[in-house]
C-alpha cells in the first residue's frame, strides 16, 4: 500500500484502522528480509531507488512506479504511422538510451520488444481530503509526478484532482484513441453508495477503507495510463498531471446529458455488434478474441473466489479475536494455576493470530483482488478495441457498397444522357473511391495497431501477474513463519501444565 506516511495525515480520521494499516504495511515490509526496506511514501522515493520486481522485492506496488527512460526520436505526433516501442521497464540502472532503438523501420511491430527504451516517471496519488459538506462534498487527491522527461515542464509537480477529473481524463482519451485500436486503461468505477457514506461524514471503518481503496485504484489507473507510450505524450494527460487548474469534467456525471448520450451509444454499439457479421480474413484476430473471451470468464470467476476469500478471512480474524477473549475468560475462572496460565497464553496466541489473519486478508485484497478487478476492466477495454476494428471494417464495407451504387447510378445516367448530372455522378464516384481507400487504410491501420497493442498488453499482463503472485506467495510465507513462531512459544507453556 502506497503512501502510508501521508495516509496518517488524512483529515478523515485517525482511527485504529489507520494505524493498523500502517502497521500492516510496515509489518509486511519489515518481515520480508531485504537490504532495502523500501518506504513507499511518494516524497521519499528517488528515481533510482525504484525499479522492477527483479531487484526490489519489498515494494508492493513497484510495478506502479517503473523506471523506463525514453530518449529516442519518439516525439512524433500521435497519429503518425511511426511505430512506437513496446514499453517494458528493464533495469533500475539509470537511464541510458539504448543505441539500437533508433534502427526502426515502419513495418516493425511485434519485433519492437527488442528495442527497449526506458521511461522515467513516477506518479503517486495521496492525501485524500474531504472538501465541502453534505451531499456536495467531494474528495480531493494530491497527484504528484516526478519525472525527468523533457515533455514535462518541471521535474516534480503536485496537483489536486478530484474523482470526476480522472473520469474526465479517461473519457477524453477514450474518444481520441479507442477508434484507432489503442487500449485505453479504464478509470476506476463510480460508487454511489461508497461516496455517499463519505459525503455524509460517516467516519467509520468502511468509509476509510473505501477512500483508501479508491486512492490506490486511482494511482494504478494513472500509472497504467502513462505506461502507454502514446498516451503519455497526450496533451490531455500532460495537462492533467501538470496544470493546477483543470476545467471541471461535468460530462462525467451519470445523469448528465453527456452521460445519457453515452448510455445510448453503448446500447447502439451493442446492437451493432450483433448485426455486423464480419468476414474475418485474419485468423489471428479470431483466435485472440476467443482467448480474451475465455480469459474474461476465468478472471471474473477467480475474482469472485478471491473476494469470497477476503471476506471469509476477515470473518476468521473476527472470530479468532472473539475466541481469544473467551479463552482468556476461561483461563481466569480456571482454578488450577498452571492451566490457568496456559489458557491465558493460548488467548494471547490466538489474539496475535487474529491480527495475522487480518493482515493476510489485506494482502489478499490489495494484491490479488484489486489486480483481478483491474484486469477484468482492462479486458473489457480490449474487447472494445476489437469491436472498433469491426466498426472500421463495417465502415469500409459500407463505403464499397456506396461506391458500387454510385457506379451503377453513373452507368444509368450515361444511357440517359444528362451531362450535368453525369458530372456530379462522376464526382461522387471519385469521392467514394477516396472513401473506400481511406476505409481500407483505416482498417489496416487499426488492425496493425491492435496487433501491437495486444502484444504490449500481454507482455504487461504476464509481468503484472507474475510480480503480484510472487508478492502474494511471499506474504503467505510470512504468515506461516509468524504462525510457527507463535506456536513454538506456546508449546512449552502447554507442556508446563502440571
Amino acid at each position: 500500500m502506497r503512501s502510508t506516511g501521508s495516509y496518517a495525515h488524512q483529515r478523515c480520521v485517525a482511527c485504529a484502522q489507520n494505524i493498523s494499516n500502517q502497521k500492516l504495511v510496515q509489518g509486511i515490509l519489515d518481515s520480508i528480509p531485504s537490504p532495502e526496506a523500501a518506504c513507499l511514501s511518494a516524497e521519499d522515493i528517488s528515481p533510482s531507488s525504484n525499479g522492477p520486481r527483479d531487484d526490489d522485492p519489498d515494494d508492493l506496488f513497484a510495478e506502479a512506479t517503473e523506471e523506463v527512460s525514453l530518449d529516442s526520436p519518439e516525439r512524433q505526433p500521435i497519429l503518425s504511422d511511426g511505430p512506437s516501442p513496446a514499453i517494458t521497464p528493464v533495469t533500475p540502472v539509470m537511464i541510458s538510451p539504448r543505441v539500437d532503438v533508433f534502427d526502426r523501420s515502419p513495418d516493425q511491430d511485434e519485433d519492437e520488444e527488442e528495442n527497449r527504451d526506458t521511461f522515467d516517471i513516477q506518479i503517486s496519488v495521496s492525501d485524500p481530503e474531504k472538501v465541502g459538506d453534505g451531499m456536495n462534498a467531494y474528495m480531493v487527491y494530491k497527484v504528484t509526478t516526478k519525472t525527468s522527461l523533457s515533455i514535462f515542464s518541471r521535474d516534480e509537480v503536485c496537483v489536486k484532482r478530484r474523482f470526476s477529473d480522472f473520469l474526465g481524463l479517461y473519457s477524453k482519451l477514450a474518444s481520441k484513441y479507442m477508434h484507432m485500436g489503442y487500449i485505453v486503461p479504464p478509470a476506476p468505477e463510480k460508487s454511489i453508495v461508497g461516496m455517499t457514506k463519505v459525503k455524509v461524514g460517516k467516519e467509520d471503518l468502511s468509509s476509510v477503507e473505501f477512500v483508501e481503496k479508491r486512492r490506490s485504484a486511482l494511482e494504478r489507473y494513472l500509472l497504467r495510463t502513462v505506461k502507454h507510450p502514446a498516451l503519455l505524450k497526450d496533451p490531455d494527460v500532460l495537462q492533467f498531471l501538470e496544470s493546477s487548474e483543470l476545467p471541471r469534467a461535468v460530462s462525467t456525471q451519470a445523469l448528465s446529458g453527456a452521460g445519457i448520450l453515452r448510455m445510448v451509444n453503448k446500447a447502439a454499439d451493442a446492437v451493432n455488434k450483433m448485426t455486423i457479421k464480419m468476414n474475418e480474413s485474419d485468423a489471428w484476430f479470431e483466435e485472440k478474441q476467443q482467448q480474451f473471451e475465455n480469459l474474461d470468464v476465468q478472471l471474473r470467476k477467480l475474482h469472485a473466489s478471491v473476494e469470497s476469500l477476503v471476506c471469509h478471512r476477515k470473518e476468521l480474524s473476527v472470530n479468532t479475536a472473539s475466541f481469544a477473549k473467551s479463552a482468556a475468560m476461561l483461563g481466569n475462572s480456571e482454578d488450577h494455576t498452571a492451566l490457568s496460565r496456559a489458557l491465558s497464553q493460548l488467548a494471547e496466541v490466538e489474539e496475535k493470530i487474529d491480527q495475522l489473519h487480518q493482515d493476510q486478508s489485506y494482502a489478499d485484497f490489495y494484491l490479488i483482488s484489486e489486480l483481478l478487478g483491474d484486469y477484468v476492466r482492462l479486458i473489457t477495454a480490449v474487447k472494445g478495441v476489437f469491436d472498433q476494428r469491426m466498426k472500421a471494417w463495417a465502415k469500409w464495407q459500407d463505403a464499397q457498397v456506396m461506391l458500387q451504387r454510385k457506379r451503377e447510378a453513373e452507368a444509368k445516367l450515361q444511357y440517359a444522357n444528362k451531362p450535368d448530372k453525369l458530372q456530379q455522378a462522376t464526382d461522387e464516384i471519385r469521392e467514394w473511391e477516396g472513401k473506400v481507400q481511406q476505409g481500407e487504410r483505416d482498417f489496416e491501420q487499426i488492425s496493425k495497431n491492435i496487433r501491437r497493442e495486444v502484444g504490449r498488453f500481454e507482455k504487461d499482463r504476464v509481468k503484472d501477474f507474475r510480480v503480484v503472485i510472487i508478492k502474494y506467495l511471499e506474504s503467505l510465507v510470512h504468515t506461516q513463519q509468524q504462525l510457527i513462531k507463535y506456536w513454538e512459544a506456546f508449546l512449552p507453556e502447554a507442556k508446563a501444565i502440571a
Partner: protein
Amino acid sequence: MKQTFCVIFKKESSIIAVDSISCGPHCLMNVDLQTDATLQVDISDALSERDKVKFTVHTKSTLPNFKQNEFSVVRQHEEFIWLHDSFVENEEYAGYIIPPAPPRPDFDASREKLQKLGEGEGSMTKEEFTKMKQELEAEYLAIFKKTVAMHEVFLCRVAAHPVLRKDLNFHVFLEYNQDLSVRGKNKKERLEDFFKNVVKSADGVLVAGVKDVDDFFEHEKTFLLEYHNRVKEASAKSDRKIRSHKNAADDINRIASTLYTLGTQDSTDLCKFFLKVSELFEKTRKIEARVAADEDLKLADLLKYYLRESQAAKDLLYRRGRALVDYENANKALDKARAKNKDVLQAETTQQVCCQKFEKISESAKQELIDFKTRRVAAFRKNLVELAELELKHAKGNLQLLQSCLGVLKGDT
C-alpha cells in the same frame, strides 16, 4: 488399540462411498483410563447406515461375573442413552459425577450436502464433481470418527469408575448380545423430562442460594457455575472460528480450480505459472482443512466435552445441595416433633436417613470433584500440547510447500 470401521453411505440404492479406515487409540478426553486390565472397553468397529450408527462394543475382562474373557456386542445410540439415564435415576449413584451421555450422531448436514451434490451432478464438470464428492466423504468420515470417539469415551469413563463399573445394567449392556429393546423416549416421556428439568432448574436456584458451611463445597459451587458458563462461551466461539477457517479453505479450493483452468487456456508464459500455483494451492488447501479439523478435534471437542462434564459436576452439587436441604428440613421437623412430643420416632428415623444420605453424598462428592479437576487438567494439557504440535507441523508443512514453489517460480523468471 487399533480400530477399523466401515463407512457406507447409501443414496437411494446406489452406494456412493465405501471406505475402511483404521485409527489410533481414542479416549481423547481421559488420559489414564486404559491401565486397568480387569475391565477394558472400546469400540472396535462401527457401521453407518441410513439413519443409524451401529457400534461394536468390545470388552476384555478378567472379572468373574462375565461368562467369557473377551466378547463383543452391537449397540446403538439409544442404548447408550438408556444406560446413562439408568445411572442418573439410581439413588445409589447420587454422590458421583455421572459421565455425560454422548451426543446423538448427527449426519444431517452432511446428508443434505450429499443430496445437493447428487442433484447438481449434471451441472458440474467431472473433476469438480469428483472433488466435491471426495470432500464430502472426508467430512462425513470426520463426523463419523468423532461420534465413535464420544461414545467410546463414555464407556471408558464408566469402566474406569470404581463403583459404576460394577453396575448391573452396565454389564448387561456389555454382554447381552441381543437387542436391549430400548426404545427412544416417546413424546409423553420427553415432555415429562422437559418439566422435570424446569423444576430442577428452579430448585437448583433455590438450593444454590443456600450457603454451604463447608468451604470446599462453597468454593466448588462458585467455581463450577462460572466455569461452566465460560466453557460454554469458549466452545461456541471456537466452533464459529473453525467454521470460518473451513470456509476460507473452501475458497482456496475454488481458486485453485480456476487457476488450473487459466493455466490450461493461457497462451502466454503465464500458463506454466498458473498451473504451478494451482498445484500449490491445492496442497495448501488440504493442509488448511486439516488445521481446521485438528483444531476441531483438539480444542472444540475438548471444550464441548468439559461443558458436558461440568454440567454433570453441577448436577452432583445440586443433588448434594438437595440432600442438605432435606437434612436441614428433617432436623427442623425433628425439633418440632420433639417440642410437640408427637411422632418423634418417625422424625428421628427420617432425620437419620437424611443425615446418612447427605454424608454419603458429601464424602464421595468431594473425591469426585477432586478427580474431576485432575482429569480436567490432564485432558487440557494433553490436548493443548497436541494442538500446538499439530499447528506447528501444519505450518511447517505449508511453509515448505510455499517456499519450494516460490523457488521454482522465481527461478523461472
